[in-house]
């Protein structure tokens, strides 16, 4: 991760009040949000439904006008087109022109970034391969499944090789392989110095990829910090031992209980369902290699980056 810590996104006292046709306030979706996201960070914006995550993101992109407060994105106002040329955005729902094919969609967005035809054709080819949609590249996206549309949405967010990537629930609708790939992509992009802001309801996903998170509730920032800091339980220690047989485990446990005078909990962790799924659907008995690798110049493979523990673990409280 790059050392520089200049803020890529900075909001101060950000408020958004939605109004009805008669300009009467209907809901205050964001209430005085102060947020700072630094260069090269992967930042997770969490919160229950309706807590104002998407509203915040839309304000960062100049799609919604804030009622009060200031926003700086890449040092500029939210609707500055120079700044937007460096931003990739995946909306909560992949809003796509249903009559266009994925290829046409990517060419369309490439032309909005001013890419030449040759550049656009090449980028489109790379992105279609990356999101594994080459087989459906010439079918209208109107007939796509939710996950396929999501993949097109993801590809269009990367069309300009962004410096700042804003992903609103990127894994929603994706199959486990797709989610894994998105997480790998985010990690790879972050390694390349891209700043990522993402929202997700899948906390495990956020935990896997984010450096820092903020939790919004009804428009108010309730918690913010590094995941490791937020999640650390200072009064608990966990050991993990591979290949420990039952009598030894019981002996260790008894020893620990005798020594500390506290109850020790012993568990045999199972493989995560995600990892199991990835193993089952691995094609041709091979590890599934992330198709984004050539595009990013890095080789990533799904199961290896899975941080879920698979060995015997002995959590103690």
């Amino acid at each position: 991760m790059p050392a520089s810590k200049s803020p890529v996104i900075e909001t101060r006292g950000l408020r958004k009040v939605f109004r009805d046709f008669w300009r009467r306030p209907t809901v205050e979706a964001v209430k005085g949000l102060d947020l700072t996201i630094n260069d090269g960070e992967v930042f997770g914006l969490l919160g229950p439904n309706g807590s104002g995550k998407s509203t915040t993101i839309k304000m960062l992109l100049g799609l919604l006008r804030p009622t009060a407060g200031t926003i700086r994105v890449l040092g500029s106002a939210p609707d500055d087109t120079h700044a937007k040329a460096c931003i990739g955005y995946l909306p909560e729902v992949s809003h796509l022109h249903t009559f266009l094919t994925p290829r046409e969609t990517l060419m369309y967005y490439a032309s909005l970034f001013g890419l030449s035809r040759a550049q656009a054709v090449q980028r489109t080819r790379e992105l279609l391969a990356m999101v594994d949609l080459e087989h459906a590249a010439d079918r209208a996206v109107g007939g796509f499944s939710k996950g396929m549309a999501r993949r097109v949405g993801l590809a269009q967010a990367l069309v300009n090789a962004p410096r700042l990537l804003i992903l609103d629930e990127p894994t929603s609708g994706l199959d486990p392989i797709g989610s894994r790939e998105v997480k790998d992509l985010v990690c790879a992009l972050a390694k390349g110095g891209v700043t990522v802001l993402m929202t997700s309801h899948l906390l495990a996903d956020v935990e896997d990829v984010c450096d820092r998170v903020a939790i919004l509730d009804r428009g108010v920032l309730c918690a913010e910090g590094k995941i490791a800091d937020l999640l650390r339980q200072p009064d608990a220690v966990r050991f993990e031992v591979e290949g420990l047989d039952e009598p030894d485990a019981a002996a260790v446990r008894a020893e620990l209980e005798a020594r500390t005078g506290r109850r020790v909990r012993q568990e045999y962790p199972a493989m995560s369902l995600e990892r199991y799924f990835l193993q089952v659907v691995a094609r041709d008995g091979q590890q599934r290699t992330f198709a984004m690798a050539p595009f990013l110049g890095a080789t990533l493979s799904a199961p290896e980056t899975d941080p879920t523990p698979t060995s015997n673990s002995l959590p103690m409280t």
Partner: protein
Amino acid sequence: MFPHDGQSRARGLALKQTAAIARATLVEAIQQPVAFLILLSAVMTTLLVPVFQFHRFGEDGRLARDSGLACMLVFGLVLAAGTAGRTVSGEITCGTAAAALGKPVRRVTFLLAKALGVLAVTMLFWLGVLCATLLAERGSAHFISHIEYTGYVMDVITLVLGVAGVAVALLVAAARHYYGRRRFGVSAFVGVVLSQVLVVLATGFYNRLGQLYPLLGEAACLDSGAGHAHAAGWVFYHPELNLRVIPVALLVLFALAIFAALATALATRLPTGPTLAICAGVLLLGLAGDSLLIGAPFWSVRGLVAGLLPDLQNFWLCDAVARGGRIAWRYVGAAALYALTCCVLFLGAGCLAFRERDLG
């Protein structure tokens, strides 16, 4: 890789974006079955009027011409206002506008590109119906005095070619869809327009009696009506079309452009239904503009309404070309300027309304 500072680069980018958005709007609009049905209805009605014509209205071909122009105005208004309303408010509600504006696209660029896309659809439609009108007028019964025949003649070949052109365009569109997986709506829409243009060009190769050129002198010339002259030598190509219709049709196109701009502006804030309703109101009041203004005091609601709304009577001058009449090109120029002013005002208001519009 991406354009950064520099005004010319920014302008180049804006042009590129405008072209992309306008093109997507055009494709989206004409691949809608309803757009194609509107074009098909207008063209077929225009081409079939001469077949069922039982009255001359004092001039050969007048009924065909007037109904062609009326189809152009009525169907064109529905198409222009409907497309503008649907494409702008549709994109705002379904989120594709937000997706585009999340890219480095200015809101003004987006809206103007949308308006240009709608204008392109309208112009394609207009071209198709204009050609059909020219064909219908030529095809309808005319009194001719020819060395071989004197009396009323209906140019059935031209009408059949016009209708056959539509049929062929549909078949080609179906084949392109089946074999090339091309969009049927787009091929059909463009194909029907193209077929009418081609038939218009083809009418120059034969006369009203169906005789192929080249023909010599009197044998060639069957121009009916006042302006009919005899060629001295061989005639190789002679379309016998009433080109005086073109300025009248241009005026109709200006009216359609005004409505496209108005609907685009309204759709930035309103759904398609209310947009169309307001357009219909403006149409009625605009046509009544003259009578509203007559006798109205300078400062009055009537005067204000008549002053604010575009006076559509300026754009409906089909009587001016009756019995050999002409519309001066200077008038067309002035009307173009008037229409442009209306469009700029409407789109300017639209841009202001869209600037603060929440997209999400």
